């Protein structure tokens, strides 16, 4: 975990998705929900795979983009960028859902019960989706950070 925090100050983490290897089993979603909440469900998963055509899949997850639309869209300034992750301050958040609408990658959604935004946090530096993928379609890569 410490290693990843050190790396995140210089580089940007990204969960890379290889469409050709994906089998659309959604085990990544199960493992994500299991790690964070101990339950299974695709509404509480921070990664989502959708199917566009028989062999075309799309992975919806926080990409740590350079523009950070969600942070600028938040009216109460509850979101911030810390150590490679978008962090939610649950005291400031008023569950308006503006960040969900602002994200062009559809990487944010509201938790169905607490109504707090849930965003990929890389499972403390060791993503469970990457570990769980039986086809090796997901991988964690570090990209050079262009904006601090």
């Amino acid at each position, binding site marked *: 975990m410490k290693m990843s925090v050190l790396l995140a100050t210089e580089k940007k983490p990204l969960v890379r998705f290889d469409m050709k290897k994906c089998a*659309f089993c959604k*085990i990544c979603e*199960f493992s994500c*929900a299991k790690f964070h909440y101990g339950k299974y469900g695709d509404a509480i998963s921070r990664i*989502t795979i959708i199917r566009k055509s028989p062999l075309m899949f799309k992975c919806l997850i926080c990409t740590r983009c350079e523009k950070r639309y969600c942070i600028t869209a938040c009216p109460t300034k509850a979101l911030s960028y810390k150590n490679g992750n978008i962090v939610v301050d649950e005291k400031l958040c008023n569950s308006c859902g503006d960040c969900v609408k602002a994200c062009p990658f559809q990487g944010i959604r509201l938790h169905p019960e607490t109504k707090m935004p849930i965003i990929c946090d890389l499972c403390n530096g060791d993503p469970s989706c990457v570990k769980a993928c039986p086809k090796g379609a997901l991988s964690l890569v570090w990209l050079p950070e262009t904006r601090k």
Partner: protein
Amino acid sequence: MKMKYSGYKGKILRINLTTKKTSTMEITDEFARKYLGGNGFSARFIFDMVDPRIDAFDPTNVVSMMTGPFQGINIPTAGKYHMATKSPLTNGFFDSISGGHMGAEIKYAGYDGFLITGRSDKPVYVFVDDDNVEFRSAEKIWGRLTSETQEMIKEEIGDPKICVSAIGPAGENRVRYACVITEYRAAGRGGVGAVMGSKNLKAVAVRGSGTNEVADPEKFEEWMKWFNEEVKKVPALASGLPTYGTPVLVSSINNMFGAWGLGTIRPSSSRDGRASPGRR
């Protein structure tokens, strides 16, 4: 009502297309233990609800979509849902099991299955969003192929994540072996698509925001690891089926039936999924 077993939600949704009304039916622990799910539930409900003398295209015929207790958790080889009805092809009980994520989505919506009766006067599709059930007009998408239908419904609702089971032109025109397609997987053979078409029901779309739990997560994880390793030891499951699909079973079943002295099919090219040159 909370059930003893966490694999069941304890609720069956009954959808009446004639009156456009829905109601829920509770199931008990005993019922779940006796009939398990999927095929058992469907057979019991259809036995109770359908008069055997009716025509399959009668409005009182029931289309049942049922799930089992393994849905919505990551048990390998269990991601299926079950469709049953009185078949227009054979006039008997018919069931088909289809892949796709419909079963998990039904569980997340808080149900164990749907029972669809009646006949709508206009083409509709049903959208189940947890407790809200909407009957939406399907006049725009009537006549479309299943892949187009699924995309149009996802666009209309505005969520790419919902799961849609739809019929195509075959089901609308009551072809007696029409399929119901979820994503790119089919509930085929006996004509459940034709029965849906006779009810003027184009599609069933489901979005669930619920969760599933297992009773003992640690033991479950341990068992899952063991199971995944065991699956990889079987050559048909490890490499045969993922590469070639169901047709890979043709040759082995052929050999098995030949050894029993039952009927076999002649080996021909591409019939076992491998496109090997064979004699006719």
